[in-house]
Structures are given as C-alpha cells and as structure tokens.
C-alpha cells in the first residue's frame, strides 16, 4: 500500500509542472502543513521526558529544536508550528512510518535492524549496556552473576544481549522482567535480583532517584556499546541532509558541551537530581566525528 501511494505521489510529481524547489518527503509535508511534529518520550530521563508541568523536555528535545530552527531557515517559515506527540518504545517506529510524527526525539538505539525500517541522525549519545548492583553484594564483574537472578526490562535490546553473553561465556543467569525500568529497578532494590542489566545512563537515572543512591553502583564492564540518535523516515535524503547538517553544526561548534552539561552534570527537573554522568571518551569522539553508524 505504501509503495502504491509512493508511486502515485511520484507520478503526480513527475507529471505536474516541475516545482521551483524539489522538496518532496518530510520537508514538503512540513511546508504544506506549516507544522512539524516531534515524537517525544514521557520518562526517558534526561533525553526526553515530561517535567512537573507535563511539558516535554530533555537533551534529545534540545537537539531536535536545533533541527526545527534549521527547517525554519531552510523553508523560510519563521512561525513554523511545532507539535509534540508522545510516543512509546512500541509505537515510535509505526508512528514515524505512517507520518504521525516527522522526527523522533527520544532514547532510541541506532541498530542495523532498525535501519531497515527508518533512518537515523548523527549519534548524540553512546551508552554501555552494563549492570547496576548493590554495593553490599559480592558481585564485581558480570561473570560473578553466574547462578544468580538478574532483572531487565522486557522489550529492550538488553534481553538478547544477556542471552548471547550467557552462551558465549558459559554462565547461567536467570532473567526476570519488569515492564518498565522503575519496576526492574524495584526488583534489584528488593533483593529479588542481584543485578539490573540496562543502558548505563538509564541505570544512573534510576539510581539518582532511588531512596539511597549511595547503596548502588554500576559495574565498569560493558556488554555492548549502543549509539542513541533521533529517528526520521527512511529514504528521505533532503531531510536527512538537513538533520545531519543542523546537528553536526552544534557538535562541531562546541555548543554541544553546554547542552550536554545542562542535562548530564547539573541538576535537572523535576526533582533537581544530578545524574553525574560526565562525557565518556566514546561520546566525545562521536561529537568530533558526527556519524550515523548503527550497531
């Protein structure tokens, strides 16, 4: 059906008088409607979440607003309307594909599997999949978890990662699933699980909000590194070029340092918690050489 529509649109474009500017795709949609719709998450702290006034804020949204500014200049629509649409990890890709949102500003891993469905902007964060444990426990490496129970959040990329680690290292861990990060962390806090395996930045967010943040630590080990990026529709070269240019400029100019510091090493809304997550060498490298390589 999609191909059918695309064919019709292409035919209409080719058949009609050639437009002065060949926009097509997302940029044309934005120009025609005078609106850009950003998809945001509700609890992906500090990337994309709701503050105490239920307004979407976050690191990813700040970067997406740079893209919106570039769109305004490019299309010469200074009063471009920005609509914000909440999305979840389950519906973010379908909503992008069916045109409900034009750009997804959340905490989405840029993976090769997803690149078959969507395109990604430049990597704006690199996480390590690691484990949060209690300081009081005897677990110092992921291998120490042999024979223990670990929690993780269902539907995340951590699930197949643990399974392949088990197979490769011959360790045997028992996974239990929380339906969101808060529940998975609760399993660790209640000693039902010896570790919570997840993206390190999300673990840092859970720990910062825990009753006793000093009780927990994140293991220095990494199961895998994953780049985070904004998602846009696949096969839309002009919009992709604009996204790369806008975000790349922020990274090259060093403006990114300020934006990064605002969200990762300073107190953030709603509770004024500081994540204390200074830039890692890998992230610094991603800013120096903007790229959209997936894992």
């Amino acid at each position, binding site marked *: 059906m999609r191909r059918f529509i695309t064919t019709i649109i292409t035919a209409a474009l080719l058949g009609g008088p050639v437009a002065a500017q060949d926009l097509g795709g997302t940029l044309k949609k934005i120009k025609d409607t005078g609106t850009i719709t950003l998809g945001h998450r509700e609890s992906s702290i500090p990337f994309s979440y709701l503050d105490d006034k239920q307004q979407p804020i976050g690191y990813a949204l700040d970067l997406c607003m740079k893209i919106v500014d570039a769109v305004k200049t490019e299309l010469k629509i200074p009063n471009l309307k920005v609509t914000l649409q909440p999305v979840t990890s389950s519906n973010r890709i379908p909503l992008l594909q069916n045109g409900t949102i034009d750009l997804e500003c959340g905490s989405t891993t840029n993976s090769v599997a997803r690149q078959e469905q969507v395109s990604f902007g430049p990597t704006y964060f690199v996480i390590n999949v690691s484990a949060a444990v209690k300081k009081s426990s005897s677990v110092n490496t992921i291998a120490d978890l042999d024979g223990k129970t670990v929690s993780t959040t*269902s539907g995340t990329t951590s699930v197949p990662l643990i399974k392949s680690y088990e197979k490769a290292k011959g360790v045997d861990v028992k996974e239990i699933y929380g339906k969101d990060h808060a529940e998975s962390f609760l399993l660790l806090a209640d000693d039902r699980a010896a570790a919570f395996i997840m993206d390190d930045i999300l673990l840092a967010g859970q720990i910062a909000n825990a009753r006793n943040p000093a009780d927990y630590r994140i293991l220095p080990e990494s199961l895998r590194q994953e780049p985070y990026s904004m998602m846009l529709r696949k096969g839309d070269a002009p919009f992709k070029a604009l996204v790369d240019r806008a975000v790349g400029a922020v990274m090259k100019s060093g403006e990114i340092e300020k934006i990064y510091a605002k969200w990762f090493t300073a107190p953030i809304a709603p509770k004024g918690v500081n994540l204390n997550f200074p830039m890692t060498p890998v992230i610094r490298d991603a800013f120096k050489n903007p790229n959209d390589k997936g894992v």
Partner: protein
Amino acid sequence: MKLDIFLQQVPDGDGTWWQSLASGLQWTLLVALLAWIMAFALGSLVGVARTTDKRWLTRLGDTYVELFRNIPLLVQFFLWYFVVPGLIPSVKVWVTTLDPTQHQLVTAIVCLGFFTSARIAEQVRSGIQSLARGQRNAGYAVGLTQVQTYRFVLLPMAYRIIIPPLTSELMNLIKNTAVAYSIGLTELFFRTREMGEMTFRYFEAFAAATLIYIVISMAANRVMAFIERRVAVPGYIAGSH
C-alpha cells in the same frame, strides 16, 4: 502480511517465533487452569457463606467480594508481586528462596484466583437466591441439616442455573491472564509484545495472538456448553431443549 516471520529464529533465543508464542500459550493455559480451580473452590465457599443465616458470615463474604471486585486487576498484580512480599518479612524470605519463574507463576495464579473467585461468589450467591424459598424449607422439613440442604438440594440446582455466567467468567479468566505480562510472566501476551518489539512486525504478532485467544476462549465456551447439556435436568429451565 508475510507469515515467514513465524519461522524465523528468535535472536539469541532457542527456536523460532512460532515456538516462542507456543511456549507463551502453555503458560497462559497453565495459569488459567490452576487459577480457575482455585477461583471455583473459593468462589463457591464465599458464595455459599453469603446466603447462610449467619449474619457475620454474610458480612465477611460481602467484604471479600467488594475488596477483590473493586480493585483493578493490573493494580492487584502489582500488589501481590511487589507490595505483599515487601510488607510481610516472612513472605519476602520465602519468595527469595523461590525460583523467580515459580514465584511469577504462583503470584499470577493467586492474583487471578482471588479476583475471579469474587466474581464467581457473586454468581453462586445469585444462583442460590434465585431458587424458590420452598426448596430450602423442604430440605429442613425432611430433616436435613443446613450443610446437607446445601449439598443435596440447593447447590445442585444453583450450579446448573449459573453455568452461562460461569462460562463468561472462564472466558474472561483466560483473557485476563494477559495482564500477567506486567509481572514478567512469559505468557502469550508477553511473547507477543516481545516479538513485536524485537522484529517490528507488530501486525503479524498481534494477529496471531488475537487468533489464539479467540480459539482458546471459544474452546472453553464449547466445553462449558457441553457440560451444560450433559448435566441438564429434563424439563427444568435453560437445560431443556
């Protein structure tokens, strides 16, 4: 819609997506069966308690029904899985010795068992109260005790009357097992979501789950209809045909 997805391997798992859904279905059926047994036994006891002449027993039964009927099922799952072990130290000690999967299974059965039993209790009560008063009095008149009157006079008829609403209850229970995904039990709905989130083939995954839920609910419906016909008393209400 391409069906080949069901024959593809689950990344770093064992078997194909089709087998993953089938293993989820096994958990769904196991939870539904055991929760139904628990709900039927408990529901009958509470239902009977609410029709006896003991005032305190009636009150106790009423409270039980209102408690479990008025809390959303999703909240009840959270309470049984996270709050109960957190509040009662001896339960927490016991829970940590359990295999996590067993713990999820027990929680799901207990939670659905209590929830459904409250609804069955309400039906058993209404079934007994729908019988003519004379039946109870006739029982007492021929010298039966209260227990015997229930066993030989009231319950045999009451159960026959409430088979249709019990059928709906069984079908509801089967569908309610899907909420067990929230405590991480890897039942059918959990596997469906997992398949959607890992392959982005939501349409195929949920189409398959829809079909499976319809088939098992309909099968439960047919089994209950068969029972209804088998136990029908000729010439008496719905059973006659």
